[in-house]
């Protein structure tokens, strides 16, 4: 027989205290202590007026265009991969609201540590399609010189930090950057995204723990798409949800509908303002669904069924936002097709340009291991290039 103890009365009082700390500063502070998922958009295009963020029609149009761009980009990449024109790609379909909503809440000087599905986030942060495609084709103009798998973008100019393929390795880096921002009295913040699977890693714990102890200006955005390759969330955690984990580290966690771009934007904006005001870290769990496979090497039909996909398609982020925009008259009906068309043209041009650029020269295999090439690597470079006649 199991014995159940109701601790909720204790939790409630501590939540209320936490809430009161912020209520003066943010009218919406109750969101952060709500156990319900934050949603602003309703399926029929209605909106929760109390929570609706103040965005101009131009901003809303831009958000929508980026969402369409991100979706079409994923489709194009998969097609390029299937034609053998690129080696690998990752499908972001389903993640558009998470990525565009969060990135729109950041300033140019803020730093992001994206994960491999965050194509849309990088584009909003400033990565050009040219830069994106050079990385996709791993050509000689790729900032990473074709050394990484082609989903690990890096740009110092846009503060998009390079990531490894070990999924949670970047999380403590983001906390370190946030510490340094605070140390140097900069008002910048850091955002790192991760998937639900990454929350099982030791570095997730370390990063959350350091962030809490240091009250670092950082946002952990968990794009919970229900799967880590083949494994559903229940294989990763027995926790009631992911957002609740933040409480154990001493800061707020909020769960939002990750298909509701306004909700993601709103939650991120609040977390950013809180971090800038010295309020420390926030975790945002954006609940969404990975509509495609894990990567171009994966076949999701092996482990999940069609009905599940249909359920989520009916809750797709793009039509949900479109209903809102139409109702609000932010975009005219005929403009929707124009957006798709112009996005496609832009993609085609970028692909055409980057595909023509040659692969990196053999000599680059040996550079950037160190700031200068040491003698033992120079010897190998000379041998590979046929210099010195060894």
């Amino acid at each position, binding site marked *: 027989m199991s014995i159940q103890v109701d601790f909720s009365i204790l939790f409630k009082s501590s939540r209320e205290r936490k809430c009161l700390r912020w209520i003066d500063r943010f009218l919406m502070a109750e969101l952060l202590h709500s156990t319900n998922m934050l949603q602003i958009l309703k399926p029929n295009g209605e909106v929760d007026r109390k929570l609706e963020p103040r965005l101009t029609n131009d901003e809303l149009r831009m958000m929508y265009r980026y969402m369409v761009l991100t979706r079409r980009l994923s489709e194009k990449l998969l097609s390029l991969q299937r034609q053998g024109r690129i080696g690998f790609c990752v499908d972001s379909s389903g993640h558009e609201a998470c990525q565009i909503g969060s990135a729109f809440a950041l300033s140019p000087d803020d730093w992001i540590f994206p994960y491999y599905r965050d194509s849309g986030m990088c584009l909003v942060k400033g990565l050009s399609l040219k830069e994106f495609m050079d990385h996709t084709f791993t050509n000689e103009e790729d900032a990473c010189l074709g050394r990484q798998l082609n989903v690990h973008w890096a740009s110092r100019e846009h503060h998009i930090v390079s990531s490894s393929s070990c999924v949670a390795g970047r999380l403590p*880096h983001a906390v370190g950057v946030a510490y340094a921002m605070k140390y140097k009295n900069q008002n910048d913040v850091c955002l790192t995204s991760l998937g639900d699977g990454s929350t099982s890693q030791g570095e997730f714990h370390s*990063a959350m*723990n350091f962030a809490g102890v240091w009250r670092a200006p950082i946002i952990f955005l968990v794009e919970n798409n229900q799967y880590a390759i083949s494994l559903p969330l229940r294989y990763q955690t027995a926790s009631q949800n992911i957002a609740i984990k933040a409480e154990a580290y001493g800061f707020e966690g909020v769960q939002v509908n990750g298909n509701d771009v306004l909700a993601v934007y709103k939650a991120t904006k609040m977390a950013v303002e809180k971090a800038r005001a010295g309020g420390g870290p926030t975790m945002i769990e954006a609940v969404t669904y990975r509509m495609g496979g894990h990567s171009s090497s994966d076949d999701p039909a092996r482990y999940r069924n069609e009905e599940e996909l249909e359920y989520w398609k009916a809750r797709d982020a793009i039509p949900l936002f479109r209903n809102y925009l139409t109702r609000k008259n932010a975009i005219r009906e005929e403009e929707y097709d124009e957006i798709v068309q112009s996005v496609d043209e832009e993609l085609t041009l970028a692909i055409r340009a980057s595909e023509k650029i040659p692969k990196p020269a053999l000599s680059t295999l040996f550079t950037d291991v160190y700031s200068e090439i040491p003698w033992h690597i120079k010897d190998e470079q000379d041998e590979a290039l046929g210099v010195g006649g060894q």
Partner: protein
Amino acid sequence: MSSNSDVVLLGEDLGRDGGVFRATEGLLDEFGPQRVIDTPLSEDGIIGTAIGMSLYGLLPVAEIQFMDFAYPAFNQIVNELAKFRYRSGGEFSPRVVVRMPYGGGIKGGLYHSQSTEAFFIHTPGLIVLTPSNPHDTKGLLLSAMRCPDPVIFLEPKRIYRTFREEVPDDDYTTPIGKASVVSEGSDVTLLSWGAMVQTCNEAVALASKENISVELIDLRSLLPFDIESILRSVKKTGRLAIAHEAPKIGGFGGELAAQVSERAIDSLQAPILRVGGYDTPFPYSLENQYLPSSSRVLKAIKNLAGY
């Protein structure tokens, strides 16, 4: 730290306690908790956040309390720190100095005694340094902090309390990539680093009583290593012994032996001999039997001289 406010220290017990070996004593009072950071007990957190601090322009000197505790941070050191510059095409190149007390001889048992420098030497992207005396410790540490690449800075813990020496107050550096000839000799070249240099010194003195002249080289910089000094000496003596605390198999001595064989086989008059820790885990009770002694080093020297 006085001359550069970007320098921060982070690690376990290095502030309030001054470090378990007192290496950072007094720094918390002088520079405050923002710069001398007592972190949670988490090695991957220490190295991971140090990388981030560096990306934003700080110069972190991170401490792993004992080299044996580096394994929780292995992913951060090997997959992240070492590869950042390369994988990002130079967009991001963290400069972190990772200090690690290493080696045996303090009755620390299996998990406070290991010498695993070979793991880090085997990782492209890292500079690996180890001083054998106080003078080089200051000089190499300053070089490490001015080095644009990540540095694993190994501090031989056995000599923290057993080697005293006056160190100049002024600013000086010991160059990375340059070995030091501790004593000149003509019969045998003996190559070593870290605390083993002291043991080797004893062996050199014992050998000279038997009229064997040994040239002892302290490598100091394990990667990049000073191949020129090694070859110059081996071409003179024709005989080479390499002594280190780490287990022999897969140890750095094997790599050095291969490098010398590839480049100077014609100069060698005897096989290259290695004296290492045994190929077992590091023991507690039998620590002194495990660590290569001056008599084991002497035996190798005599074998070479009589070959």
